[in-house]
C-alpha cells in the first residue's frame, strides 16, 4: 500500500466544522511535499453529504465512516470506529483540527492504537526525510519542532487558524466516495450525552463591533474594569475580555473572546493587560489592527500586535482616554 495521509474532517450537529477546511489545506500541502496520497474521512451517522462535499476538493478518495452509534458523538464510539478504520486503511499520517471534540477522543484513540498524537500544531517542516510538527509551548513564549519516534500511524492535530481554509484546492473532478460501515458492539458506549444547548442569550454581538477594547488579568481588580469601559466609550467601541475576567464574574460570559467565547475580526482590537494565551488569540487574531498594552515585554500578545506598548496600563490608559476625547472633539 502506498503511503497516505488521512484527514479526518469534523461534523457536528449536521454541520461541517469550517476548521476542517484548514486541516484539508494542511493535508494538501503535506501531500505535495511528501508525495503521499491524500485521503479524507468523515465519521457519523448519515454523513454521505459531507463526504460528497469534501470529494469536490483535491483528494484521492473520501470515506464516509458510518454507524448509527456514532450519533450523538461519544469518545467511546469515535475511538472504536476510527481505530477499526485506521487499522485497515493504514494511513501513515492522520490529521485533524484541534477542536474540543478532537481533544476529547484523540488521546484515547492514539493510546488504544499504542501510538501518540502531536497536538495543537501550528505548522510543519520537512527536515530531510523527517517530518517535524511545530507547536507552541509555555503559553506561546517558545516554539518546539516535534518528531515522531514511533511507528505510523502518526496522529497530528492542527490549531484553529494554522492554515487557510479558503486556500483549499478544488479537485479536477469529484473524488470517489466510499461508505465504510463500522461495528460498534453493545456496551462500548458508556457516556450518555444529552442535548447540546446554549447557556444564555447573547446580549451583545461582538462579531459586529468595529472597535473592541479587551481586558485581561492585567486589569487586576473588578473596579478597574471601569477604566477600560471609559476607553471603549471614548473610542465608540465595545468592551470585551479574556477568559479569566469572565470566569471571575467581572464581565458577563457573552463578552468573552477566545476559543470558548466569541471569534471576532474588528477594525481595531485594543488589548489591555492581556498576555495572549493561545485560547484567546484564536478568537481575535483576525483583527485588522491589534494594539497591545502590557507590562510584560515577553507577553505573547506582542507577537501578533501591530502597535505595542510595554508599560503599566494604569499609567497609559487615563491619558489615552483624554487624548482620544480631544481628538474626537477636534474632528
Amino acid at each position, binding site marked *: 500500500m502506498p503511503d497516505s495521509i488521512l484527514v479526518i474532517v469534523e461534523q457536528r450537529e449536521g454541520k461541517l466544522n469550517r476548521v476542517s477546511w484548514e486541516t484539508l489545506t494542511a493535508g494538501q500541502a503535506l501531500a505535495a511535499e511528501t508525495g503521499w496520497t491524500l485521503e479524507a474521512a468523515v465519521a457519523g451517522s448519515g454523513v454521505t453529504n459531507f463526504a460528497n462535499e469534501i470529494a469536490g476538493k483535491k483528494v484521492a478518495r473520501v470515506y464516509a465512516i458510518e454507524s448509527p452509534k456514532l450519533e450523538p458523538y461519544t469518545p*467511546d464510539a469515535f475511538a472504536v470506529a476510527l481505530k477499526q478504520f485506521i487499522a485497515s486503511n493504514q494511513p501513515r499520517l492522520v490529521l485533524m483540527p484541534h477542536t*474540543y*471534540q478532537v*481533544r476529547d477522543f*484523540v*488521546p*484515547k484513540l*492514539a*493510546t*488504544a492504537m499504542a*501510538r*501518540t*498524537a502531536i*497536538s495543537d500544531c501550528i505548522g510543519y517542516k520537512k527536515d530531510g526525510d523527517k517530518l517535524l510538527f511545530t507547536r*507552541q509551548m*509555555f*503559553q506561546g513564549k*517558545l516554539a*518546539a*519542532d*516535534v*518528531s*515522531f*519516534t514511533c511507528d505510523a500511524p502518526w496522529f497530528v492535530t492542527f490549531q484553529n487558524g494554522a492554515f487557510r481554509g479558503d486556500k483549499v484546492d478544488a479537485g479536477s473532478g469529484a473524488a470517489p466516495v466510499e461508505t465504510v460501515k463500522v461495528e460498534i458492539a453493545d456496551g462500548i458506549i*458508556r*457516556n*450518555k*450525552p*444529552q442535548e*447540546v444547548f*446554549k447557556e444564555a442569550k447573547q446580549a451583545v454581538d461582538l462579531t459586529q463591533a468595529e472597535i473592541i477594547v479587551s481586558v485581561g488579568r492585567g486589569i487586576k481588580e473588578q473596579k478597574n474594569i471601569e477604566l477600560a469601559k471609559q476607553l471603549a466609550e471614548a*473610542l465608540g467601541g465595545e468592551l470585551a475580555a479574556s*477568559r479569566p475576567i469572565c*470566569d471571575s464574574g467581572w464581565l458577563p460570559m457573552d463578552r468573552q473572546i477566545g476559543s470558548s*467565547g466569541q*471569534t471576532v475580526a474588528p*477594525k*481595531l482590537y485594543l488589548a489591555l493587560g492581556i*498576555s495572549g494565551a*493561545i485560547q484567546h488569540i484564536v478568537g481575535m487574531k483576525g483583527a485588522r*489592527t491589534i494594539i497591545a498594552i502590557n507590562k*510584560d515585554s*515577553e507577553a505573547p500578545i506582542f*507577537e501578533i*500586535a*501591530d*502597535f*505595542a*506598548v*510595554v508599560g*503599566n496600563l494604569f499609567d497609559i490608559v*487615563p*491619558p*489615552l482616554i*483624554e*487624548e*482620544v476625547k*480631544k*481628538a474626537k472633539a477636534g*474632528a
Partner: protein
Amino acid sequence: MKILVCMKQVPQKDAPLKLNDSGAWIREDVSYEVNEPDAFALEEALRQKEKHSGEVVVITAGPARAQQVLREALAKGADRAIHLEDSAFVGLDAANTARAFAAAIKDETFDLIFTGLQSDDYGYAQTGVVLAELLGWPHATIIMQIEKTDAGIRVKRELEAGYFQFVDMPLPALLTIQSGINKLRYATLIGIKQAKSKPLRKVALAEVQSAIGANMQKIERLYIPQKTKNTEFLEGSPAEVAKKLVEKLRNEVHVL
C-alpha cells in the same frame, strides 16, 4: 467519594523564560506555580468531598521543587499526596506521564480522577484522557459542573462557541476540569499547619520504570518563535505614548 487529582507545577505565567546552554530546554531557575486548571480541579474535588464525604488525594510528577504544589493542596484540604519524584519526569511525553501515574496508583481504588484540562506549559491536553484509556475508564473533557446521580454522575461539558452539553456517566470516571468551574479557596493558617503532618508518599522513578516506555514523540528543537508581524513598539512617558497611539488611531488605523 474517593477522588484523585493530578496536578502539575509549571513556570509562572509572567516568568521570563530562557533556553539553557544546550538550547534543548528552559533554564530551571525560574519561579514556579501550580498549573491553573489543576487548581480548579483540586477545588472541585474538595467541594465534592464536602458534599459527599470521602477522600481527596493529590498526585504530581517532577523534581523536589514540585512538592510545593502538593503541600499547597494539602494545606487547602487534600488528605494525602503522592509525589513521583525525579527530574526525569519532566521529559516524559503525555503517554508516559499517564503510564507513570497509572503505575503509582495501581493498588488504590478511586471513584473519580480529575485533571486540569491542559497544562499551561506544554499544553498537550492529553495526559488525563490517556490515563482514562490506560485504566479502561470512561472520561469527559472540559467539565464545568459535576453532580452525583443514582447511577453515577452527570457532568456539564463545555463545547465551543458558547455551547454546553450534559453527559451522564458511570463511575469510576476521569474528568478534565475547565478553569472557572468554581471559586478557588485560600489555604488557612490552620490548614497550612495541618498539612505538615499529612501523609506524602514518595515514588521513585525505579518503582514505575517498568511501566514507562520510550517516548513516542521527541522535541527536536526548542526556540523563541519568529515574529510573523512587524510590531512597532511605542515608547516614552505615558502622556507621550498616549499621543502616539492617538496619532496611529487617526492616521493608520483610521478609527478617529
